[in-house]
């Protein structure tokens, strides 16, 4: 004899549906908490648009319960590049060999743990003792890095770059641009660099912005009116192995990341290079800002100078300044000094005031030591996926 027990009224008491007579549409009513589960899986652009649907949806970003769901989805559900997460993390830093003596080191970490590291030798001329070396755009594209080295003697700048595939140890130096070897009346000063991939032409490119200092030379015979001190924006293509000048107007007055410890490297994502610049020359409120790529979005990590609370905002729509949305707050955590990079699993690498690097999980704020110390401000980190791409083979 079967025993039927009625189910007690559950959370879906208001569940009801009826089949209406016109075109068999069913009038389903989805309660808010379930609707939020659906909404939390939408891109932020869609959410902002759907604020028009009804009042409660226009207040989603002020709803802490919803924002938690949204943050979790943002961190852990990036379906697009799930395959990338099988890669390693590269870490470029200046390690102290002895007090005040630092040497550039390049590591590959698996599982973001320093104990599972492999140290790779940097290729010449990047294996020296220069302190002004970096990875352009803090990125490896299809397993290739672009290494850069600034050498300054007084106000004279020289810049060397090379493409490097650590998996094959292939190195290819980038030739200097003819506009660098400038007439004697001017000296170049490199403002910013970028490296990226042109997927339309299957080409690897460098971009560089140079301004010029006047050099006073009594023997200079180029008349003043014929001289040019105009800044130049140049782009190098690996396919053609040449530089050319881009006719683009960089607005005056932008000072690209001229805080002395921040190298002008910027970030690269999806065919676009980004740099953080400022038009504020000292009248600002003392905010420090770090531009990073967080889960397929351009993001800013910022804090007030010396404060240990960091705000993370993401740029929802490229080119739309109104689309910066603050998504995370980290801290206050007294030991934190400066953010370094974003890791694979929803974590951010920070440098602590004791020089140690740590991971902070953005959803739990749990701190995990990486186990490495280094020189202040000279760290770069990112995702690396090994490839056997032959750089030389890309030359046409």
């Amino acid at each position, binding site marked *: 004899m079967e025993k*039927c027990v*009625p189910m007690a009224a559950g959370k*879906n008491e208001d*569940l009801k549906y009826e089949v209406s007579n016109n075109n068999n*549409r069913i009038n389903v009513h989805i309660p808010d908490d*379930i609707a939020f589960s659906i909404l939390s899986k939408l891109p932020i652009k869609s959410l902002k648009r759907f*604020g028009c649907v009804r009042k409660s949806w226009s207040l989603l970003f002020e709803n802490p319960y919803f924002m938690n769901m949204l943050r979790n989805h943002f961190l852990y559900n990036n379906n697009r590049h799930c395959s990338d997460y099988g890669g390693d993390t590269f870490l470029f830093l200046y390690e102290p060999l002895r007090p005040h003596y630092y040497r550039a080191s390049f590591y590959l970490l698996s599982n973001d743990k320093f104990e599972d590291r492999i140290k790779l030798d940097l290729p010449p001329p990047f294996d020296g003792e220069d302190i002004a070396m970096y990875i352009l755009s803090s990125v490896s594209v299809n397993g290739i890095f672009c290494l850069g080295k600034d050498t300054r003697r007084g106000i004279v700048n020289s810049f060397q770059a090379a493409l490097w595939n650590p998996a094959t140890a292939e190195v290819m130096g980038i030739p200097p641009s003819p506009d660098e070897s400038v007439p004697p009346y001017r000296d170049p000063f490199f403002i910013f660099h970028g490296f990226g991939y042109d997927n339309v032409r299957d080409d690897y490119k460098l971009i560089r912005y140079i301004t010029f200092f006047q050099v006073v030379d009594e023997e200079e015979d180029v008349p003043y009116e014929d001289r040019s001190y105009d800044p130049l924006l140049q782009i190098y293509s690996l396919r053609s192995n040449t530089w050319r000048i881009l006719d683009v107007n960089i607005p005056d007055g932008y000072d690209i990341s001229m805080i002395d410890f921040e190298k002008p490297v910027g970030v690269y994502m999806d065919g676009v290079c980004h740099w953080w610049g400022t038009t504020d020359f000292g009248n600002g409120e003392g905010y420090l800002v770090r531009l990073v790529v967080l889960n397929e979005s351009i993001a800013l990590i910022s804090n007030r100078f010396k404060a240990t609370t960091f705000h993370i905002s993401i740029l929802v*729509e490229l080119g739309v300044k109104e689309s910066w949305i603050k998504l995370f707050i980290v801290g206050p955590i007294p030991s934190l000094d400066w953010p370094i990079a974003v890791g694979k699993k929803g974590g951010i690498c920070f440098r602590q005031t004791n020089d140690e690097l740590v991971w902070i999980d953005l959803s739990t704020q749990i701190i995990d030591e990486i186990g490495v110390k280094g020189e202040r401000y000279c760290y770069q980190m990112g995702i690396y996926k090994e490839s056997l791409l032959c750089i030389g083979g890309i030359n046409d």
Partner: protein
Amino acid sequence: MAEEKSQASSSKMLTLKASDGVLFEVELNIAKEMKTVQAYIDDCEDIETIPIPNVLGKHLAIVIEYIKKTNEEYDAEFEKQWNMDDLQLLLLAANYLNISGLQECLCKAIAKRIENKSPEYVRKVFNIENDHSPEEEAKLRKEYKWAFEGVDKD
């Protein structure tokens, strides 16, 4: 043998009765994936038929099939067979029966389908009345103009 073992532990069958009276005989371990059902089994050991008053037979059949077959490949194809109404009803069923994997799968599927749509479309899909005043809505549309670019035509 592993096969026999699983047979033995799941040899107990349960009957689930959908809201329209359709009966489903399922193995205990399948029924247990529905946490709501599990809770009732825990409460009353002698149950043989459990009424599921909120779910139509058509949807309960789909839910049971999902539980039996779910894996990465199956989940990826699962949602493609159903229209929006069925997806929503399945979501309500999965929510009522407390099957978290299916809820996740369905929420993602519905989100994917409305991602590029207009607010009007979404209102129709969810049967929502617009409680914004015209001025409020106009203000939102102006403020988030950038979010309206590239939207699918209704």
